[in-house]
């Protein structure tokens, strides 16, 4: 269905200049294309990476002025001046993205708004360069017909690039960061790098559209690059459908044609505009494309799993081999808001086998995992992995050293399919060449197939292969945990930390889990740290147990010894009546 839809769009785009010679209609069609390009760029930022921008008019302006100045000031030809604007926008986009390093939500909205306003006012103030409020005239322009073909081609290429990006390791990484930054970092993905990359791509596309805008009109002035323009860009994307490849095109059409249809009602234009917007937000929370797709999905059969992708069992191999201590935690302490969560915790995990950490709720077990994996910074103490200190390193850096984890509440990337979730783990920090991802080079296809095959094998091992193509959000709780473990193992870790993997599982599922963990151990898989309440499971499969109570380790040793320890019995197992 999607293929037919794209065919129809392409046919319409090709036939339009034949059907009409009315330059106004062609101009409108050009406007649709420009808006679609900016919205597609914004889609990379907001739809994939989850960052809203209210300042894209600024990048649009950089593209337009860059191209206009190159063409008028330097006398460069069109094919050279448009890329000038695009590169300028990309460089500034990277800088803005980097500056917005730690901000999110309304703070990020503010950074982008401020950026847009600064650009607008610089354009007005720097008269010698930009012509001030009067703008730049006499930009060499193409006839409307020529512009039409150029812009139509640019729009097609842009949509193709974003579709490629979405289907690549980079696209998955961006969506992972959007869906759960915490889980993405646990797989070695730097959320900062992902977001800055998205910002750069997004700004470059806005710059491209700006350059094309300049040569379409032959005249630009700051009036075209206000906050209102930025809002229209965002509206086009949200109306069309955030995150979908076709959404920007649909939004571009709607937001270009709507004002045209309302010209007769000039006095009520804003009321109608605002009301339509409200109605679309109420009625179409996922945009037009999202609404159409969810209707179609209800009827579509599940895509069958092709037989050759199944069943290639490839056991994960541990990277470390020696029997010495893999993880050493020494005197670890942390407190939050004056309340001590952990103090003086010492723990050694050898490079193989299962080490359980037990203790009452709130004893600090999850905090310990968060400290080891870099989510919290310890106030005191040492954490060494294979002899090297890792305390205070960011989560993605710890993950890249071969530490994988699961979360107490499983955090699959809900926007992605089950198999894509595991593919993110397989790829880890190795996202490949960004250009290759955008252009879908031949190497990319091969790599994708390898990633997919590996991911399917891992899913098969946990019995999830039949649901590989379903969205992760549709999995029930027990399977979400299975998916998360498969995803963690996909990174081929040396150390795997499991945070209450048995919580909420049925006895059969717990037995499966126990069998899988012991099988992993006997295959020489990663060292496992198991935080768990389920005493049957802990006693059955652990090689060693450490008991945490009130932020301290009160006992450690073999299961049988720990079980008899009177302190453990009092703190945790219960006082015999």
């Amino acid at each position, binding site marked *: 269905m999607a293929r037919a839809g794209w065919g129809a769009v392409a046919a319409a785009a090709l036939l339009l200049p034949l059907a009409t010679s009315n330059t106004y209609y062609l101009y409108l069609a050009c406007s649709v294309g420009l808006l679609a390009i900016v919205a597609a760029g914004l889609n990379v930022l907001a739809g994939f990476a989850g960052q809203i921008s209210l300042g894209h008019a600024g990048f649009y302006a950089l593209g337009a002025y860059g191209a206009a100045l190159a063409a008028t000031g330097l006398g460069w030809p069109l094919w050279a001046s448009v890329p000038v604007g695009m590169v300028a926008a990309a460089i500034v986009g990277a800088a803005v993205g980097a500056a917005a390093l730690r901000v999110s939500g309304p703070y990020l909205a503010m950074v982008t708004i401020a950026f847009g306003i600064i650009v607008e006012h610089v354009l007005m103030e720097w008269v010698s360069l930009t012509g001030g409020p009067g703008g730049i005239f006499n930009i060499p322009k193409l006839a409307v017909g020529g512009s039409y073909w150029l812009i139509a081609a640019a729009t097609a290429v842009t949509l193709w690039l974003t579709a490629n990006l979405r289907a690549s390791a980079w696209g998955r990484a961006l969506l992972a960061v959007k869906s759960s930054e915490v889980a993405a970092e646990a797989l070695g993905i730097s959320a900062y790098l992902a977001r800055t990359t998205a910002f750069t791509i997004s700004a470059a596309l806005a710059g491209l559209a700006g350059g094309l805008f300049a040569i379409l009109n032959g005249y630009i002035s700051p009036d075209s690059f206000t906050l209102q323009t930025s809002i229209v860009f965002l509206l086009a994307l949200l109306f069309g459908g955030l995150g979908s490849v076709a959404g920007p095109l649909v939004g571009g059409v709607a937001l270009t044609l709507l004002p045209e249809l309302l010209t007769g009602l000039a006095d009520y234009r804003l009321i109608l505009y605002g009301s339509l917007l409200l109605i679309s937000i109420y009625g179409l929370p996922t945009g037009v494309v999202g609404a159409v797709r969810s209707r179609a999905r209800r009827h579509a059969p599940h895509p069958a799993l092709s037989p050759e992708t199944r069943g290639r069992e490839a056991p994960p191999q541990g990277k470390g081999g020696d029997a010495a201590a893999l993880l050493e935690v020494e005197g670890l302490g942390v407190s939050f808001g004056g309340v001590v969560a952990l103090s003086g915790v010492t723990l050694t995990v050898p490079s193989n086998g299962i080490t359980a950490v037990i203790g009452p*709720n709130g004893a600090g077990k999850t905090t310990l995992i968060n400290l080891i994996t870099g989510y919290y910074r310890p106030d005191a103490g040492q954490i060494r992995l294979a002899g090297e200190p890792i305390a205070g390193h960011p989560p993605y850096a710890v993950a890249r050293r071969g530490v994988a984890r699961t979360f107490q509440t499983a955090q699959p990337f809900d926007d992605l399919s089950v198999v894509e979730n595991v593919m993110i783990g397989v790829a880890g920090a190795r996202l490949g060449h960004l250009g290759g991802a955008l252009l879908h080079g031949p190497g990319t296809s091969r790599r994708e197939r390898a990633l997919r095959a590996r991911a399917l094998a891992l899913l098969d091992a946990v019995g999830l292969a039949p649901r590989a193509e379903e969205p992760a959000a549709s999995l029930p709780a027990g399977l979400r945990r299975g998916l998360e473990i498969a995803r963690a193992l996909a990174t081929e870790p040396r150390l795997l930390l499991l945070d209450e993997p048995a919580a909420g599982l049925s006895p059969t599922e717990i037995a499966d889990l126990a069998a899988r963990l012991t099988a992993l151990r006997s295959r020489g898989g990663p060292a496992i740290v198991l935080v768990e309440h389920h005493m049957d499971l802990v006693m059955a499969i652990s090689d060693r147990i450490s008991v945490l109570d009130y932020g301290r380790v009160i006992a450690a040793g073999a299961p049988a010894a720990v079980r008899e320890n009177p302190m453990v019995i009092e703190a945790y197992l219960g006082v015999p009546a």
Partner: protein
Amino acid sequence: MSALTVSGLSVAYGAATVLHDVSLEVRPGEIVTVIGGNGAGKTTLLKTVAGVLRPAAGRIAVGERSIAGRPSWEVARCGVALVPEGRGVFGDQTVRDNLLLGALARADRGQPIGPQIDRAVAHFPALRERLDRPAGALSGGQQQMLAVARGLMAQPRFLLLDEPSLGLAPLLVREIFTVIARLRDEGVTVLLVEQMAAQALAFADRAYVLERGRVTLSGPAHEIRSNPDVVRAYLGTARTR
């Protein structure tokens, strides 16, 4: 006085059903405990009774009055007070202000508030000395005490306690349980959800065992305590030595 009854209760998060057909009853003056592992649905049960979550099916009633699906602020005013897991004290406000907020839901708004605060903190000397300190500056144990005292300010007919022992040192756990026992002696009706099954069963009147969202066992607490399955799964091997 009327009982708190739950019958045929089912709760779902999106596609996942967390509680299946749960029924239980809390009669005035009783202490009833619900035990079960992490993820069994204990907290979901209390939150649904208190109106924080909406049930997918089933009936929740105080006496004859149905409260299923009503928002939490209305349930609170029907005499059901939940002391949530993790305490939920208002850290930027003083202990006294926290207690005043707790009193919003009491049925008799006319009586003077001062003596009521005195009564609520009577069990908790540490709070009495810190009435004008911000609640966020209290230790974990003191915050738990405050959460219970705040729940009492509503003069509830049913006090719902969600894992009051969470994150507390053994000594403090014992203290909390002593307080709950004393409340029972004063006639407060308590529905207690606990992971520390041994302590909870030690002084509850009746108990329910929740496993994977279903009630698998119920009865007088002393019977549940000696049930071999319960001993093995929740009380640890320590008791069978």
